């Protein structure tokens, strides 16, 4: 499997580390949102533990630790290992400010 790092170009997968699903977003409740403690707990339980077991394309975090040391988001087909796209994760590099919640 070879992964096309958006910064370094195509490299062997041994240079990368897999983290997992890139789709869960950290729940963000305002103090006075009125959400019940159970609702908050459920949302965090979902965020921390529950994952879809996708057969097909999914968005994943990959870390190019053996190269530019950037976090990447890849769209990979879990059945064929085909990569559809590999892009920098939010906050990589100094050019762009990080958006809240990313």
């Amino acid at each position: 499997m070879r992964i096309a790092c958006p910064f370094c170009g195509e490299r062997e997968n041994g240079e990368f580390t897999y983290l997992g699903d890139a789709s869960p977003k950290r729940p963000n409740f305002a103090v006075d949102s009125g959400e019940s403690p159970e609702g908050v707990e459920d949302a965090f339980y979902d965020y921390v533990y529950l994952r879809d077991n996708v057969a097909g394309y999914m968005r994943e975090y990959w870390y190019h630790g053996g190269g530019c040391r950037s976090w990447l988001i890849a769209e990979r087909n879990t059945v064929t290992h085909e990569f559809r796209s590999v892009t920098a994760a939010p906050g990589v590099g100094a050019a762009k400010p990080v958006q809240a919640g990313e």
Partner: protein
Amino acid sequence: MVDYLWNTQSPLQKALVPGRHGAAGAHVGVTLNEVRDIVLVQVMARRGKAADAAKAAKKLFGIEAPATPKAVTGKTATLIWSGPDQFTVIAPRTDEASQLAAMVQVFAGSASLSDQSDGRCLIRVSGPRGRDAIAKFSSLDLHDLAFPVGAAANTSVDHTAVNLWREANGADGHPVYNMLVFTSFADSLWHTVVDSSLEYGVEAASARAA
């Protein structure tokens, strides 16, 4: 109280045996040099200050800092891309304190600097079979079209992080590759490089950066 004698020595003190190794004969296939007496500084642009850092680099070194995996050589230093919005400055050591002070001044507020002068070891691989030797342990495509003069890469060799870049061809017309490696891994990497080169005939030496 114990008196310490701080004995500075090369990370390749034991591993590097100067002279000819491997295949006998008049022909040297691979020339290996440890390049000593370098000043090496990692420059990382601060959040939102990438353009300012690039401007500062241009002001001090007179060259554009690389924004893609490339090594750019100016009069006083070579700037090697080492990741998004970061690069490594390498220069022959003349007056280290003033070399560092100049960088601290020009990058103030736009980038964070980290002095790696004694943290990395620079190994230079050249000669007619240098590329063949590297191809044995690197997964990079080193063909002239894929990795021309000025190309750079952060990569892994033997599970060790290596900054690899290609400088201008040597006087013999053959490619010259530079490998920067953490000092503590230099011994191991040196053995890897030597072992890969033995069949071509090796000339090993330690040299001052120029």
